């Protein structure tokens, strides 16, 4: 894989200098803190803002720490994925369009090194962001709600991380295959769109990458469908590998489309 280390450095420099290495983690951490804090103070906020009739008492459901984790996952599933897709949709297609890719492609690099260097740096940033977000949430949950079992939290994060890796790989492979606009559309369809489909009619099957976030939360509920979880993990792993393979090949095939 000629040039892999150099490309890895280039990719890291890029993500540092365009601040993605800073703002993406910040967004996930802020969301991670916001969720427990706002849920904890929601009754008070409503009381002070809403003009409720004297004596009226709303019964606010008592949330558990586990439930806060689940609702944070809901935030990540929408806002988080939107951020990932929008931030990285042009990773390869953008380089082709502006023509900056040309001076890379005329060098004896391997497209495997080219694609994997991006894959590693992007996954590194996004996974670190998700982890930091959940850890921050965990800390706040333990103060404001109840302390959640560490083993459960790590199981939850690990399962969800595989799903996030699937999302990042898909975005990157789409960017290798299509123009930025199409890549973004397909990425959102595949992640958020299919997620909605799966939640509507997904009861008919138990194995799919889109079930992974659900299985992640099931760590807390205890309604463990171990077979479904492990098969979904396997399927997602395979999907990631296939996407990498496709991404490498499409990067190579589309090299001629770079602006000269």
């Amino acid at each position, binding site marked *: 894989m000629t040039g892999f280390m150099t490309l890895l450095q280039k990719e890291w420099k890029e993500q540092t200098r365009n601040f993605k290495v800073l*703002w993406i983690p910040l*967004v996930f951490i802020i969301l991670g803190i916001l969720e427990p804090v706002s849920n904890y103070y929601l009754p008070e906020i409503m009381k002070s803002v809403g003009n409720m009739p004297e004596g009226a008492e709303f019964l606010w459901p008592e949330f558990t720490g586990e439930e806060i984790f689940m609702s944070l996952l809901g935030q990540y599933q929408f806002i988080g994925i939107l951020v990932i897709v929008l931030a990285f949709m042009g990773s390869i297609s953008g380089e082709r369009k502006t023509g900056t890719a040309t001076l890379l492609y005329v060098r004896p690099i391997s497209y495997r090194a080219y694609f994997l260097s991006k894959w590693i740096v992007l996954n590194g940033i996004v996974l670190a962001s998700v982890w930091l977000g959940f850890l921050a949430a965990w800390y706040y949950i333990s103060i404001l709600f109840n302390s959640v079992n560490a083993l459960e939290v790590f199981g939850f994060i690990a399962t969800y991380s595989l799903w996030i890796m699937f999302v990042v790989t898909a975005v990157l492979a789409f960017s290798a295959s299509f123009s930025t606009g199409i890549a973004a559309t397909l990425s959102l369809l595949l992640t958020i769109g299919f997620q909605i489909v799966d939640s509507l009619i997904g009861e008919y099957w138990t194995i799919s990458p889109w079930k992974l976030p659900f299985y992640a939360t099931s760590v807390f509920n205890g309604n463990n469908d171990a077979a479904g979880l492990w098969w979904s993990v396997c399927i997602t792993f395979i999907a990631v590998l296939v996407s990498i393979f496709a991404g490498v090949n499409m990067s190579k095939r589309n090299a001629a489309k770079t602006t000269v």
Partner: protein
Amino acid sequence: MSELADVPWNLILPLLVLQFILMIVALIDVIRNKRTNGPYIMWIFIITFGSLIGSIIYFVFGRKND
């Protein structure tokens, strides 16, 4: 004034600090580069008054990378 004291600052402060860092990073980037999609003054307003969402949409849509 007792209400202010009731606010659990030790919990809220980190949140405010992080949001502030995000905003400052976005502002520094705008002012240093001045290469934005659309007038950069507009982005300064969006970042300053749009809090979390403002900074995010600047980084996603406002930043010019070429």
